[in-house]
């Protein structure tokens, strides 16, 4: 199989399926956009017939303006040495999807991670419980509508330094002019 061209076997499989678009973004990267209904079937085909046995990661992106979560499944084939990224979108309100743990064991970790950080529930995933944020009561922190900085300012205190040199400057009429938080955008 040539590495530079998109693996013809993969192309054949992708052509079989409807409701997806694919595009080669670089010599070893393929992007597939697929509807949420068709994604599990696609993964099954990719694993079963096109040697994409390694689930490198599942990434989640919060597109708050579109009111959607984007799930990206990164799959690697040890035979054709290509990385396929399958993108799909799910509605933000329901935030539920189907687990792919049956196909890919590593999915359990990533699905749990997304569950904790974004609050997306994966049906059929073995560990839909907290792992990292066991002692966190707030909203899923990676959601765009959670303002971490505001939470921090509200919860924690900062040092109130007042060293001698600053006291001297204040006596001379100087002192703190611009605090760091004033220049943050």
């Amino acid at each position, binding site marked *: 199989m040539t590495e530079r061209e998109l693996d013809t076997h993969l192309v054949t499989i992708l052509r079989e399926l409807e409701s997806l678009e694919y595009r080669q973004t670089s010599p070893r990267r393929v992007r597939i956009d697929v509807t949420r209904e068709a994604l599990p079937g696609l993964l099954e085909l990719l694993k079963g017939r096109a040697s994409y046995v*390694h689930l*490198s*990661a599942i990434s989640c992106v919060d597109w708050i303006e579109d009111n959607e979560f984007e799930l990206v499944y990164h799959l690697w084939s040890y035979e054709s040495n290509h990385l396929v990224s399958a993108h799909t979108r799910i509605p933000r309100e329901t935030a539920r999807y189907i687990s792919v743990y049956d196909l890919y064991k590593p999915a*359990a970790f990533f699905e749990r991670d997304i569950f904790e950080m974004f609050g997306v529930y994966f049906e059929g995933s073995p560990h839909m419980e907290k*792992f990292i944020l066991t002692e966190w009561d707030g909203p899923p922190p990676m959601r765009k509508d959670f303002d971490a900085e505001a939470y921090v300012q509200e919860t924690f205190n900062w040092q109130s330094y007042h060293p001698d040199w600053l006291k001297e400057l204040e006596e001379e009429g100087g002192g703190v002019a611009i605090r760091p938080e004033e220049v943050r955008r």
Partner: protein
Amino acid sequence: MRPENYQAQSHPPSNEYELFIGPNHPGIEGNYAFKLKLHGDVVLAGKADGGYLHRGFEKLMEGRLWIQNIALVPRICVPDPVPMEVTYSMAVEDLCGLEVPERAQWLRVLQLELSRIAAHLFTFGGHAATTGMYTTSYWGIADRDLILDLFEALTGGRVYHIFNIPGGTRRDVPPGFLEQVSQTLDYLESRLPDYDNLLFTNQVFITRAKDVGAMTQEQALEWGVTGPNLRATGLAFDVRRDDPYLVYEQLEFDVPTEAAGDAWARAMVRRAELKQSFRILRQVIERLPSIGGPVRAPIPNPLAWNVPAGETYARVESSKGELAYYAVSNGGDKPYRVHVRGPSSMHAVQVLEWLAEGARLEDVAQIMFSLDACPPEVDR
């Protein structure tokens, strides 16, 4: 609320009991916890407990400028920080279409391999210590410090180098640096027989490590194992060779494998990789002086740098396995989303849980260290 590692939740039969290892335990790598259910000294089930090192990196990165994140990323994996910087930079470069000057690519390979050696020496020490042999860890850590000296000379920092930025590297090598690297390599190579005597051919170690935490290649593939741990099951796969980045295509190196898939095989693969890293570094030292040009492509004003909208998946081979960054930009001056896929997010959690099952209590720490699990990568 009582911290759950203080009091067990249920009352097991007397020959079965629960044991919490960590977070404050010498058999745990970093700040991490592992809950075991035991029958005698045989592990019935294990459950990893992470989050002690959780800082919310991915959230922090969304709140900082693209360039500011270069100071943040090396902290994601403390023992092996260079791949973090390089991968993040590669992701940003890909999004911006920035061409990295060739010299910078060689400099990055130089750092990546130095960092790999340092990380492996550290792991040997840890692995040996879990089998009761502390001398290796004393030696390994002292020898690793020589690499940190090199990093200090090159980058101005011992552990957090913050040396790779999108576009290239921040400086060129200081005068006399390559000779210094060469001498250090000579010394480390001369130390290998010592390590062999002390650890790799030591019957105590072999007996302790053989058949411990073994997995087959099929299991490894199914579980998403990568890096040296995967190669220890006989699959010759290396991102450097099979999904090449930087100038690895121009370098000669082998991908060492072992068949056994146990703790011992993993140690032996790392030992062989050490030699390959020496080999790569020798080639870099030879080639670098003949490669001219700048070490950094011109980049925009860091305070006003909008990265074009897009997404990318940058991937490298770190000392622990496959490391990837999924970066998404919406055209703004800060990342819209960065997802860090650390190799240990598999090794330290599910793989560790599965391998611990049926193992003996005294081997649990060894399994963890032989997988080279790095908790901050899991927690982020």
